[in-house]
């Protein structure tokens, strides 16, 4: 029989430790598939963050370093500069990349470092128990905003992708979701383009992946996926936000 879908070999044969319905597993599978298809597993180094996303080192069969909270882009910069023939990527959640590590990611992008960052945005601090993140939507209830996020008090949700896309050094910025099969195919294409941007030396690349957090949103996995499509995608629009140094700029 013809194979329609099988677990990629770069993804280690063990069960994910994430909550049911969390899209970290899906995001990591797509990264593993792209690494396998580009045949770069033996020269790829990943940099893990702090947060739920740190467990990526358990599942993808490439070398990993785990950085201090938010500092993954700085560590990735160091690895890439000392070993320029390697493919270096960071994989960070919104509490890591958009809160404590905002300075690192903005300056890594502005310097045009040849690294790829994957930003998993679930609009909440996952591992610490569901506190408000910079990406929490207005009106969204979290542990620290029990009446909903109020812009007068808590400010506005942070669009990191748009923020980085105006910088001169960034070459490829895209935002994707993984809620439907067609979105997943587009997401994989964006992840592939991000790696190619690095391999062709065009500059910094980032793919923001919208992910549900059923546990901290207090929803079932299906409700969380629906909430993401209904509430998050209008505020965090999907698509390629920036494609520099490439002729083929088509919608993902």
């Amino acid at each position, binding site marked *: 029989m013809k194979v329609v879908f099988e677990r990629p070999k770069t*993804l280690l044969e063990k069960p*994910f430790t994430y909550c049911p319905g969390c899209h970290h597993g899906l995001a990591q599978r797509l990264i593993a598939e792209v690494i396998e298809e580009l045949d770069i597993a033996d020269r790829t180094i990943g940099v893990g963050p702090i947060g739920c996303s740190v467990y990526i080192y358990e599942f993808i069969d490439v070398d990993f370093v785990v950085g201090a909270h938010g500092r993954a882009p700085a560590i990735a910069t160091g690895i890439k500069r000392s070993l320029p023939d390697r493919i270096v990527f960071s994989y960070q959640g919104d509490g890591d990349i958009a809160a404590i590590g905002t300075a690192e990611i903005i300056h890594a992008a502005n310097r045009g470092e040849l690294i790829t960052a994957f930003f998993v945005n679930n609009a909440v601090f996952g591992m610490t128990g569901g506190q408000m993140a910079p990406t929490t939507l207005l009106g969204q209830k979290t542990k620290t905003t029990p009446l909903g996020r109020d812009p007068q008090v808590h400010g506005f949700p942070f669009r990191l992708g748009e923020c980085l896309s105006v910088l001169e050094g960034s070459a490829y910025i895209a935002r994707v979701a993984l809620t439907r099969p067609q979105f997943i195919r587009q997401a994989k294409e964006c992840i592939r383009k991000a790696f190619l941007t690095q391999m062709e030396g065009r500059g910094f690349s980032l793919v923001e992946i919208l992910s549900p957090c059923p546990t901290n949103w207090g929803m079932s996995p299906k409700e969380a996926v629906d909430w993401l499509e209904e509430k998050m995608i209008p505020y965090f629009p999907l698509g390629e936000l920036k494609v520099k140094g490439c002729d083929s700029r088509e919608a993902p």
Partner: protein
Amino acid sequence: MPRARVVINREFCKGCALCTYACPRGILVISRDFNSRGYYPVMVTDEEHCAGCGFCAQVCPDVAIAVYRE
């Protein structure tokens, strides 16, 4: 003979049920027996009706499904 085959890794599945909504034929359901980690994994009710589209495997966050087609 079924045209397609869906292989579910019961130990990897956490019963999030996202595949049951993705399946256009509606042949995936949550089973009534739990696995060694205490989750209720999905099962295929009627493999004869499976078209082998692979949507269930695409949306599975635990990469617990493999799909084969004639």
